[in-house]
């Protein structure tokens, strides 16, 4: 690893906000009522956003996030949204304060940011920050980010950018509204810089309206309970959440746990990008060290600090299985270490359009690192990443079409939960869904030949990994695809003696009988008659295959999850004397 060539300093990130401690005592009932109210205010922002949004990425795929922060930029409530965005939004609020100046905000301001190094997302995830005022005082911020269709990048989905400017127009925390007045020049500039100005306009104003709904709800809370009481209750709620998180971390044995992993490639070259994940447990505190990582890549597979922080928070929240909305308290025991200039702490102007890919898979390695410490909690690895396919071309009548779909993968077996279940989206993208065959075929010249569980794709073990999914598309006309896949190289790991699973497999079979495997495909031409085979990885197995219940082995064969040949190979004990025959 080329770490030695990097700047030696490692930077550390941790929640630094302090309790307000305003001396007010709030009883447990009022605290709970205020919690309900804050959570509802955040949820209302989601409802308003879904209702008014133009783009199906927002109202159907739910590719958005939203949260409320107090004046000290403490996360007071977050709506139910993509887990990968859990707790990234403070970065953009902080950037807005830094760039505009806290004292310069006015009631009715609306700040727009697309700067990836502030938002922790590519420019398509347009972010809106609205300050909330109570009797003339700035008391809180409502913020949301949502996936737009086009913000003027070199193309609509960029996989080969070499700097941040190619990835979309940068709005660095600009005030689209000042004191309720829209800046018409800026507004026209924004519309002029989108290939789909109507959609941009519709989605942006949905985001703004959603922030205002949340601000209204928040203000009703302040007026009803009093600002100081709400603040004191938030202090208590943070303590409560912190306690819950500390209980989880405290149950993990102290130690330093390290694993090595790699990103398949950066989309430009085929070289893997190695990194280490080290998790340190000290009592009830956790440090996730991502600093030993490959230098920033040439291609757009780099994560800004905000992304890395968010994914680590997502990984730790998943560990705690907290279904409650996130708040500042949960993050207090979590420290994140990165090294500026690496793929996990890229610096402007490094390209970052596919910012999430390395961190999505890194979430699983954070969990794997802890497997020796908490073997009854950590599942084997999932085979999936986002499994995205973007396809476009011209229909028979010459009209242009473009569409996309995500593909779920097999999930790892888990000590406490047994075999892996049916394929799911990666946990970082919970809430997103597959696209139905009948929708794809109605909209595109793709014919789906099968959507079938991959036999033998799950890792063997005492508990079997879930199967991956084989989706085969026939191109009925010439078309193009971009397949920004990860995990084509390494096999999803099994744990505690369990077997590894099948990795992702991306193949195009051409009409002339040849075929080609891909790591990542970027704007690849697919001639009519070709078959695009997207076969997602299975989940790893748990425990020694020799310990698998022979009855379970028989059931897997009977249901067709495992072939008899593979079963005999992995579980010969199930076929002895009183075995399967």
């Amino acid at each position, binding site marked *: 690893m080329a770490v030695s060539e990097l700047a030696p300093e490692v930077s550390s990130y941790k929640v630094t906000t302090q309790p307000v401690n305003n001396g007010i005592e709030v009883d447990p009932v009022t605290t709970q009522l205020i919690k309900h109210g804050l959570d509802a205010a955040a949820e209302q922002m989601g409802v308003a956003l879904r209702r008014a949004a133009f783009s199906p990425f927002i109202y159907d795929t739910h590719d958005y996030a939203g949260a409320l922060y107090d004046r000290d930029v403490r996360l007071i409530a977050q709506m139910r949204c993509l887990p990968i965005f859990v707790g990234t939004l403070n970065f953009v609020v902080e950037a807005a304060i830094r760039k505009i100046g806290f004292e310069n905000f006015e009631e009715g301001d609306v700040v727009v940011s697309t700067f990836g190094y502030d938002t922790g997302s590519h420019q398509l995830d347009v972010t809106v920050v609205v300050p909330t005022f109570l009797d003339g005082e700035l008391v809180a911020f409502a913020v949301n980010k949502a996936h737009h269709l086009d913000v003027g990048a070199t193309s609509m989905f960029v996989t080969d950018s070499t700097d941040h400017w190619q990835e979309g127009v940068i709005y660095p925390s600009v005030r689209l509204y000042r004191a309720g007045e829209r800046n018409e020049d800026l507004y026209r500039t924004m519309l002029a810089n989108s290939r789909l100005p109507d959609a941009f306009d519709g989605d942006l104003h949905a985001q703004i309206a959603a922030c205002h*709904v949340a601000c209204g709800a928040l203000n009703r809370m302040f007026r009803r309970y009093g600002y100081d009481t709400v603040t004191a209750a938030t202090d208590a709620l943070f303590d409560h959440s912190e306690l819950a998180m500390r209980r989880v971390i405290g149950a993990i044995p102290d130690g330093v746990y390290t694993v090595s992993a790699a990103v398949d490639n950066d989309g430009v070259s085929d070289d893997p990008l190695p990194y280490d994940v080290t998790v340190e447990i000290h009592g009830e505190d956790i440090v996730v060290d991502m600093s030993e990582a490959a230098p920033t890549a040439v291609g757009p597979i780099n994560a800004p600090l905000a992304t890395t922080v968010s994914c680590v928070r997502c990984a730790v929240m998943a560990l705690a299985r907290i279904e409650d909305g996130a708040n500042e308290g949960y993050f207090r025991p979590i420290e994140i270490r990165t090294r500026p200039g690496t793929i996990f702490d890229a610096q402007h102007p490094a390209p970052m359009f596919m910012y999430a890919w390395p961190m999505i898979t890194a979430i699983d390695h954070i969990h794997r690192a802890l497997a020796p410490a908490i073997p009854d909690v950590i599942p084997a690895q999932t085979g999936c990443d986002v499994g995205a396919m973007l396809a476009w071309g011209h229909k028979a009548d010459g009209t242009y079409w473009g569409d996309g779909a995500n593909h779920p993968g097999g999930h790892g077996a888990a000590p406490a939960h047994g075999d892996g279940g049916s394929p799911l989206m990666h946990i970082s993208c919970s809430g997103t869904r597959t696209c139905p065959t009948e929708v794809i*075929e109605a909209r595109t010249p793709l014919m789906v030949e099968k959507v079938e569980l991959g036999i033998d794709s799950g890792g063997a073990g005492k508990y079997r990994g879930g199967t991956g999914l084989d989706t085969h598309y026939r191109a009925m006309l010439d078309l193009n695809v971009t397949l920004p896949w990860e995990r084509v190289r390494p096999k999803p790991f099994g744990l505690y003696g369990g077997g590894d699973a099948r990795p992702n497999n991306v193949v195009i079979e051409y009409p002339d009988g040849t075929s080609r495997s891909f790591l990542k495909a970027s704007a690849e031409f697919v001639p009519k008659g070709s078959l695009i085979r997207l076969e997602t990885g299975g989940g790893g197995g748990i425990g020694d295959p020799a310990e698998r219940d022979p009855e379970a082995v028989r059931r897997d064969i009977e249901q067709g999850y495992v072939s008899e040949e593979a079963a005999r190979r992995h579980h010969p004990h199930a076929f002895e004397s009183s075995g399967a025959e």
Partner: protein
Amino acid sequence: MASRLGVDVGGTFTDLVFYDHATGEVRVGKGSTVPASPDVGVKRVVSDTLESSELAASDLFLHGTTVGINSIVQRNGAVVGLLTTGGFRDVLETRRADRDEFYNMLWKPSEPLVPRRLRIDVTERVLADGSVHKPLDEGEVRSAAARFIEEGVESIAVIFINAHTFFEHELAAERVLRDAGFEGGISLSHQVTGEYREYERTSTTVIDAYVRPRVSTYLRDLSTSLREEQFDGEFLVTRSGGGSMPFSEAELRPFETVMSGPVAGAAGAAELCRNIDVQLAVTADVGGTTFDTCMILDGQAQVKYQGFVAGMPLQTAWVDVRSIGAGGGSIAFEDAGLLHVGPRSAGADPGPVCYGRGGVEPTVTDAAATLGMLAFGELAGGVTLDIPSAEAAIAELGKKISLDTERTAQGVIEITAVAMANAIRAILEEVGENPAEAAVLAFGGAGPLFGSLIAKELGAKTIVVPNYAGNFSAWGLLLQDLSRSAARSVLAPLDDSGLEAASNTMRDLRAGLEQRISEASTTLASSARIVSNLDLRYDGQEYFLTIEVPFEDGRIAISTDELAKSFATDYERRYGHALGAPVEIVAVRLTAITPLPKTNLLSNPGTTQEPRPRRSIDAFSFAHGQREKFEVVDRAELEVGSRHRGPMIVLEETATTYVDADLELEVHPSGTLLLHEIGGANNGRI
């Protein structure tokens, strides 16, 4: 003609409302639900409430049942075989790959209703345009039939890809399965839903096949046992999408009964809103276990075209009633220093502590009893609540969070009311309606207890407490007309040829619907009115709006321009802006409504009781934050048109209405109670 009884089976109670057409008398009954055999509970409440001569003289039995949903939740439905297109046997198991619990990496979907070995795919393929890419291999269907028979399959679901565009293969498969000797039920996807999206259609068709035997058996057992009691009228059951259908038809389309339970209350609420001119209302139906809520806009309960049961989608008309786990039996507990309520419930057994049936954990009802909100705790049938033991249980809970008994009880009620209000808020805000303008229509045993607290949370100005509030869902059953619906996806641009295609589909669909109407055995119905709708959306969007269209002389009688304009108007009303994009026709939807004989159920039951001596109790006023003297009156004493200032507690047989100190109560000419702020008018959209 047309005396009738409605029986609604809930999670905790089985409610009955009887209407005697000759005298106009309305009688209510309430019994415990018998979860293992609900028909036993039904029969019991019928014989407890009615004389056999009254039953014999009744013409209609209207039913709301949870048998369908229970067989799914408890996984005791039929052994189903799934026959599908080659390459697609795993659609049912793969779902849409989303995760219910976002942060839970160990979350797994429940096992599919059909195991993989009973999902058999065969060679056949239809494309999106309805053309046949591969013909059906009937030999493979025959082999599948043999396999299904050998495996003891009880019903078969047939789902072929793109069957909404061409369904001959499904019909052919049914013929082959029958020829091969399969005798169980066969559900064909295009007949069950006719809508595209293969997972949702598969799930719906499989559920239909899965609940079929159990629903049939239940409906037959129930009708047989009531026939034995000399009832010789018509049996009707509520549909998930509203309206009712004869038992005979429900046996053919059992998936339509899955959400039969909570729908009746919403239907009753819609009828009430039409009659007392309330434009916008939300229901607050609080039973023992759940809180159900539904928006009533312009006299209509909101209907969706997809619902979920136990995490599985159902493509069918669906009255949009949402539930949260909060009811009178919800258990209050302490965790890490905070007070929580529900969703765990003490149910009917053991029930709240104050029921004295062995319950030891404090519930919402115990908190209400502690605060005096239930007055003296007198229940129907001479039962009296054990209020001191409720207080003791609440006091015990209070110790864990260092609060006194009084404040703890208030906390339990407040937290519950806030959760209920938030559920309502979400429904209204999804469609851009303002909660402050809605009337809160409170019913169910504990609904009228919470009405004023929920209204305060929402900023709503009016609370409506209907007659027979505790049995209102059963009352709603009595007003259901017969209803049937059908839908099919079209997917064509909104231009002349697209509209032509939609007209053709609509003609087909109407013929099928008319056939179903003529085959129905009911003798009470008049002629049906068919409402024709198109689902329209902007090209590229996923969500659609359903627009009613005129259908005359075998075609849709509206121009594309007018239709586009009417769509844009609706879209703007709903989403605040219209778009410039082209419009697409997504589906054709028909609803046939056949009215049942009218009743005068909405008239005032009248004062039926001589005033008792005045009573009062010290109860907690949430408006004033202290105990005050609440007048305790019987609802039957209240005269139409009279006004009464709170604080007051109004008792009726199966419900208690809590009128806080800042409210006044007005008795509407229909007997409905209207509560609003003292000095304030009914200034919501009423």
